[in-house]
Every structure is written in C-alpha cells, then in structure tokens.
C-alpha cells in the first residue's frame, strides 16, 4: 500500500548535534515536590529525563505510575541556544550514537521530543545498552530532515521527521491530497499542552482527564510510537486550531495525571486546508517502522 513519496531528500544536509543524558530534576526546598493532578490531588511520581530502564517505544502509553515519562534515554544541552539547536535539528528516525562511557559506540534512534519546561530529545537504545549507560554520557545525532519537502504536495509542511521514517509510513495518494496511515485521530477538543507554543521542536499533548471521551475516540489504548492524526490542528508556525487543518505525529511520552498533559506527541507534518489526510492503519508504530531493537 505504501507508494514512494517524492521529496528533496537528495538535497538535505546531514549535520551533527549532540546532547548529554539528562538528570531528572525537582525543585528545591521550600518548594513542595508535588504536582497537581487534574482533580486537585497532589502527586509525586517519576517524570521526564534520565535513563528509563523499563519503558520503551512500543509499550503502552497509559497506566504507568508516572508523569509524562520519556521512553529510553533523554538528552539535552545545558546552554539554551545549543539546546534549541539540538531540539529543532533532531528528527524522529535519525541515527544516534553513544560517544562516551561504558556504552560508547552503541547505536540508537531518535523517537521524540519534549516541549516547554523540559525541552529534551528522546532517544531509543536497546535495554541491554541502557544498563551500561550513565547520566551525563554524550550522545551524538546525525541530524537529517530539516528542510525536507514533499515535491508534489507543497502545502504539506514536514516537521522534524527523518527521511527514513517518511519512507516507512503507510501512504496513499488521493488526487492532490496525500494520506498517511494512523492508529487513531485526536479531535481538536482533546488537544492540550503545547497549543500556542513553537512547532519547531517540542511536543503537543493529548488531554486525558476525561477517560470516557478518550475511550469513545479509541484513544485509551495508544502505545508509545503510535502514529496519530490531530484533526483541525494547524502546526505550521506554532500549534493552533484551524478548521480543515491537520497534523500528524508520533506518541513520544507516556500519559500523566496533570490537566492538559496526556501522552506527548512529536509533530511530524501538517497542512492548513485538507491537503494532508489520514486513514485507519492499526498498529502503525515506529517500533516496527524503524525496526527498533528491544
């Protein structure tokens, strides 16, 4: 069903960006360590950053005793402009490599990003390699994908997607429209944190406070790595509501208890007026599309 998609991939420049494995962070005293769940109760749970040993792309996005966990390993740069460079340049599907420490030489794959307040790049490594890694190890990414365009669909803007992932997505063409296979479609009223923020890097979250509404839209069984569509969402220059617009992304963080912060989505592409479509393709997950090693 996948048809070749014409792009300018031959013109892309591959460039290095690097980061270090992040240490998780909590505010110091006298601040309370708690975050508030959507019902007002206080919680203290693991959250983003660090080396996560037992959550991987392909696992469930819901039900963990955690707040928006990043599967695998999260990296960043300490200095803000360098970190923006890392966060924007890294594309989902890009190759990564451990450059220091006991796991030096191990290959990985970029699987997502996180947005405001954390701004990390999420990288998959095999579980056995994670056991050898240490916070602070340097990871370098071969960034490739920024500047990529669909030759025959100029109204579709690509966002942080590597050419290898684009090639692997199930795809159909319908007249001037291009459609990609997705696991589920998120209605605009369930799009949450990330709205109004940059769509170059970062993430956009599904809302998960109303569990019944999630189930009605088939969103309660999403897995990390699932490809999803966001209806009426324009992610060209920041994320926002626009009837007829559409965005596609990949679930890259787990659910969390906070209002507005369900599973995080790294946006991969968008169009403003119906030029981008989607079709039901259960099981479309980057763990399989990119052959991630467990």
């Amino acid at each position, binding site marked *: 069903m996948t048809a070749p998609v014409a792009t300018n991939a031959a013109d892309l420049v591959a460039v290095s960006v690097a980061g270090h*494995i992040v*240490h*998780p*962070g*909590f*505010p*110091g*005293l006298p601040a*309370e*360590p*708690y975050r508030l769940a959507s019902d007002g109760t*206080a919680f*203290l*749970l*693991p959250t983003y*950053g*660090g*080396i*996560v*040993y*037992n*959550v991987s792309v392909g696992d469930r996005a819901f*039900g*963990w*005793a*955690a707040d928006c*966990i990043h599967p695998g390993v999260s990296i960043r740069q300490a200095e803000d402009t360098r970190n923006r460079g890392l966060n924007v340049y890294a594309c989902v599907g890009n190759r990564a490599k451990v450059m220091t*420490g*006991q796991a030096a030489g191990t290959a990985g794959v970029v699987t997502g990003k996180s947005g405001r307040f954390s701004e990390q790049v999420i990288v998959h490594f095999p579980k056995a390699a994670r056991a050898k*890694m*240490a*916070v*602070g190890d340097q990871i370098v990414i071969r960034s490739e994908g920024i500047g990529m365009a669909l030759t025959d669909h100029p109204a579709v803007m690509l966002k942080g997607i590597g050419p290898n992932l684009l090639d692997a997505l199930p795809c159909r063409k319908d007249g001037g429209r291009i459609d990609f296979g997705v696991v589920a479609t998120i209605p605009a009223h369930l799009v949450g944190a990330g709205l109004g923020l940059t769509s170059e890097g970062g993430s956009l979250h599904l809302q998960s406070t109303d569990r019944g509404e999630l189930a009605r839209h088939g969103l309660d069984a999403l897995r990390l790595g699932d490809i999803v569509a966001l209806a009426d969402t324009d992610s060209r220059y920041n994320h926002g509501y626009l009837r007829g617009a559409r965005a596609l992304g990949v679930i890259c963080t787990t659910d969390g208890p906070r209002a507005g912060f369900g599973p995080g989505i790294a946006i991969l592409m968008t169009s403003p007026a119906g030029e981008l479509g989607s079709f039901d393709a259960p099981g479309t997950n980057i763990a399989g599309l990119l052959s991630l090693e467990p």
Partner: protein
Amino acid sequence: MSESLRWNVEDLVEMAVNGQVSQPTMRPNGYLPWPDGRAAVLPGMSGIAYNARVGDRAFGWAGDHVEPGVSIAHADEKSDFALHYLTCIGNEAEVTTGLARGAKGIVTGEHARLLVDFAPEVLEDMTIGDTVQIRARGRGIRLAGFPELEFKKTSPELARAYNLRAENGQIICPVAMELPARIMGSGAELNAEYVDQDLMSGDRALMADLGIDRMRLGDLIAIRNVDHRFGRSFREGWIAICLCIHGDSVMTGHGPGILTLITGPAERLGFSVEPGANIAQTLNIRSAA
C-alpha cells in the same frame, strides 16, 4: 510477603539518578552543642563511613548523625532533589567512575545525602567525588485493596522485605520497636517526602527505660498517632512505619533519624514488634548479626 498481597510493580518506572561521594564539611566554628551547652567536635555526616554500617547500633558512637556507608549528593540543586525524591530504599546502586567502577550497592537511607551500602572491600577503592548511579524504582507503589495506605520510598524489594501480612482488613508490619509521638523532633519542618525526622534523645533516662537506646541502623520503627502523608504531625488514630537511617546526636531536638515509609489510618495499618525487623537482614545486605 503473603500470597494475597498484590502490588502495582508492573506499572512502576525505573530510571537513573546519580550523585557523587560527598566530602565531610565543617563551618568555621565547628562545634556542636550538647543540651547543657558543652561543645563537641564529632564526625558522622557525609563521606565514606568505613566502620559504621546498616545493622550496626544507632546509639553510642563518638559521632553525630552518623551516616552508615557512603553518602552521596548531586551538585546541581534540581538534580539533587530528583535524587532525593525518586530514590527508594532497597534500590540498586552502581559505582560508575573511579577505581571501584562497576561495584554494586544498595540504598539504605536518605538524609541530607543519599546513603548507600557497599561491601567493606569496595569502600577501600572509593574516593570523594566518585559517581554512584541508582536505578530508582518504587515511587507510585501501591498495595491493591488498601488505597488508604501510602507507601513512600518503598522499592519492590523493600515491599517484599517488609513481610507484611493482612489480618482482618488491616495490614500488619513487623517492626523492631515503637516510639512515642511526643519524642519526634527535628524534621517536623520538612515535607514528608524529604529525608527524616529525628527522634529526640535528650531525655537519656527515657531512652533507657523504653529500650530505645538499643535501636539499630536499619530498624523498622512504628509510631502511633502521627500522620506522615504530607508532613509529619500528630493525628490521633493514624500510624507511621519508619526506618532508622542515621545515628544519634548530641544536640537538643535531635537523635537517630527516622524516615517515613508507610502511613495510614490505624484501622487499616498496624504493627507487631518482632526481632529481626531490620533491613540489613530483610534486604539480605548482611547476615543476621
């Protein structure tokens, strides 16, 4: 752990945090005051404690707030608080730099630094500044059917080591001894997710009368009529199960450190005083002393 108890272990996330072996520090005036004002200079906090280990006595050292094993901290404040809030007792630690790289240890306490037990021969190869990484797991742990009970800093390994049993709708935890609420002191100012609350050992005669002076580092401790959910305060009808994490102190309002592990209403949480309720044994860190 009886067969009927079910934990949400499969939902827990395991992630890395680290810290560096800390250097003991002193203020320009390094004296600690006894209750009568007499001054003392005593070791105990930070660094590598070569000869004080979990399972050893909590009282009687020529030291103050003795931290058994290796004390680690992170230089960056936010990272340090993540080290504090995510690490659980019983988590596995590994030395990732220096001569002892690769050596495994077990988290046995949390004071202003995290306290990690390593075998004595490993300590010989460690130095100030070595990095110790912890596989943090246990935050968010719950016991099915007992939503009223809150577990803090409880790794799945510690959950097993508690040897909890359910009796008539109540969870019973074996403990080494009970402390009266009226002697709980320094630490009342902190949130209950952070470090410990010292028992106040200044009434030395009371320590002997109640046998509190026989407490060991790593003992499980019960306190009646305290609520340790969001702070540590007196509340009739509530129970806290705690852990002795550091040694005695000479200072007024201080004493051995008591870290919160379980808290809940007394109709759902109880305890029984049993010899051997010490994590040095129950986590198989040391054979029975």
